[in-house]
């Protein structure tokens, strides 16, 4: 689906049948005509001796959930960091809403409306929940923090997401792993994003909370946001995504329409079974 031209041969050829990546270039789950919210092309990133990303492409449209899957070390988090401005790629282009953009700092991504839940959550353990939720975008008046406005907005946000935290004035260090993850996800929803990147958002969550997050992802899609979800749980991925993009060793390994793809085909793309590289 990505790179209609000389798309990554390894990715498309390996999987049998249902992927159909070659043909339907226009069929990115979104509405026809409008440019995709996010379109990255040929992203490369090298860490020392590791080529973490080697010419990766990805497109996400408004109202679409794209799942990004791949084995450990495939480069999923690195791609998320590139799009969110946390790391600067060695090569490649990013277009947002059809216009080429430069995302050199996290601030640039936020300004565009890209919000991210990182795999390592990136919370300040010494600050309380409210402070973490609003970190970097504090409500202010005359240079002073609006403590009450922020606390109120935080309570409303957490309640609307059904996040249960006993004392939102206690430092985040006192929260459980799942609660921290809930805080990180809530944080990503503040301030009207257009694109939400969720890097393994359910990794630390219990059954019920996982279902809630998946439900939340669907609600975001219904609100017209573009969502990228990374997960190792293929059942969750299939339950929530419109398309599945597979990364393998830093390269594209195919993009699949979730509804038309068997679980085996995705697994084969992830593991590279049957691919001769």
């Amino acid at each position, binding site marked *: 689906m990505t790179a209609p031209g000389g798309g990554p041969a390894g990715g498309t050829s390996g999987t049998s049948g249902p992927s159909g990546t070659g043909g339907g270039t226009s069929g990115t789950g979104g509405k026809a005509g409008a440019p995709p919210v996010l379109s990255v092309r040929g992203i490369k990133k090298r860490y020392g001796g590791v080529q973490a990303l080697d010419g990766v492409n990805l497109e996400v449209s408004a109202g679409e959930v794209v799942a990004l899957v791949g084995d450990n070390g495939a480069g999923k988090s690195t791609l998320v960091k590139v799009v969110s401005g*946390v790391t600067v790629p060695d090569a490649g282009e990013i277009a947002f809403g059809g216009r080429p953009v430069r995302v050199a700092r996290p601030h640039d991504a936020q300004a565009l409306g890209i919000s991210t839940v*990182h795999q390592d959550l990136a919370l*300040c353990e010494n*600050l309380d929940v409210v402070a973490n939720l609003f970190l*970097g975008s504090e409500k*202010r008046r005359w240079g002073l923090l609006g403590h009450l406005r922020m606390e109120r907005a935080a309570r409303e946000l957490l*309640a609307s997401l059904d996040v249960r935290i*006993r004392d939102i004035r*206690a430092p985040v260090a006192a929260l459980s792993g799942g609660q921290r993850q809930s805080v990180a996800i809530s944080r990503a929803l503040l301030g009207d994003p257009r694109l939400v990147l969720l890097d393994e958002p359910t990794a630390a969550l219990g059954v019920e909370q996982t279902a809630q997050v998946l439900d939340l992802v669907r609600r975001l899609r219904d609100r017209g946001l573009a969502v990228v979800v990374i997960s190792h749980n293929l059942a969750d991925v299939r339950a929530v995504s419109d398309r599945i993009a597979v990364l393998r060793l830093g390269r594209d390994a195919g993009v699949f329409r979730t509804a038309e793809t068997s679980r085996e085909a995705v697994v084969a793309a992830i593991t590279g079974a049957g691919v001769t590289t």
Partner: protein
Amino acid sequence: MITDTAPGPARGRLARFARLARPAGPLAAAAAGRLRGGDLGALPVVAALAVIAAVFGTLNGRFLSAENLTNLALQMAATGTIALGVVIVLLLGEIDLSVGSVSGLCAVVMTVLNVRHGVPAGLAVLLALGAAVLVGLLHGLMFTMLAMPSFVVTLSGLIGWQGLLLYLLGHEGTVNLPFDGPIARLSDTWLPAWLSWLAVAALAAAALAAALVTRRLRARADLPVPPLGWALARAGALAAVLAAVVAVLNGDRGVPLTLVIFGSLVVLLDLALRGTAAGRWIYAVGGSAEAARRAGISVTRIRILGFAAASLLAGAGASSPPAGSPPSTRARAAATSC
């Protein structure tokens, strides 16, 4: 829903403890929970001070006399001001070893300008503080741009600024401030008793008013409100502590102006750290620089700001000279115990 407000599924040891302790409300329960969770707040410091007072008071009867405590208060003002700067750098998760030298350097700059070059005292103080800010900016730039560890930067600052200080002093090795100059007078000004008591009353009233207004605003914003007794108790405790200090100090020469200035600085810094975005970002960078960066905060700018503020406060500590030699290690001890 949020279990703070509802007696919902209160689980775990913390909740049980909170119920056992019969707290006055959900916020008190949270505070009790934090205490139970190992967050002792200022308790260890208070306990240490009590031990120090008891030990030295028994060893030497004059230790707890009004005169000695007044002298301690005078020394505390200078050391404490310098320590405030160190606190900022410690909040950033870094260390500033140079504050003693910077403080001494500022004292010398100010004195040399004032005494040898006839610069008016006020201007000399401002110039010295400006020099301190420049020193701090230099530290911050070396730390952020050259990626030198703060330990190395400020250790070289400790040695280097001491050298500059000695150079500025010249052969004689000392410059004496005239005893009747405005700077010396600053450290020999004492509040009359009535003014001290008025200040105690005003401060306690202000604390109470602030607590009541906060309660009102929280109630209006539908947020959990701390019990009224809590606000009263805190204001009462503040009044009691301040009254005790004033009573002791009035037994000697009265409340020194330098102590008032120091106290104001403490309150101002506290308000700035908790009430402004820059203050919060200082905590954030100290907690996790990477998380702060990903939140879009300019970590570099905050770090440079922190080092500049530390040097500025070190300079400010120097302009109350009675403490004598630059009290670098004392300041650091004071900061780490804060």
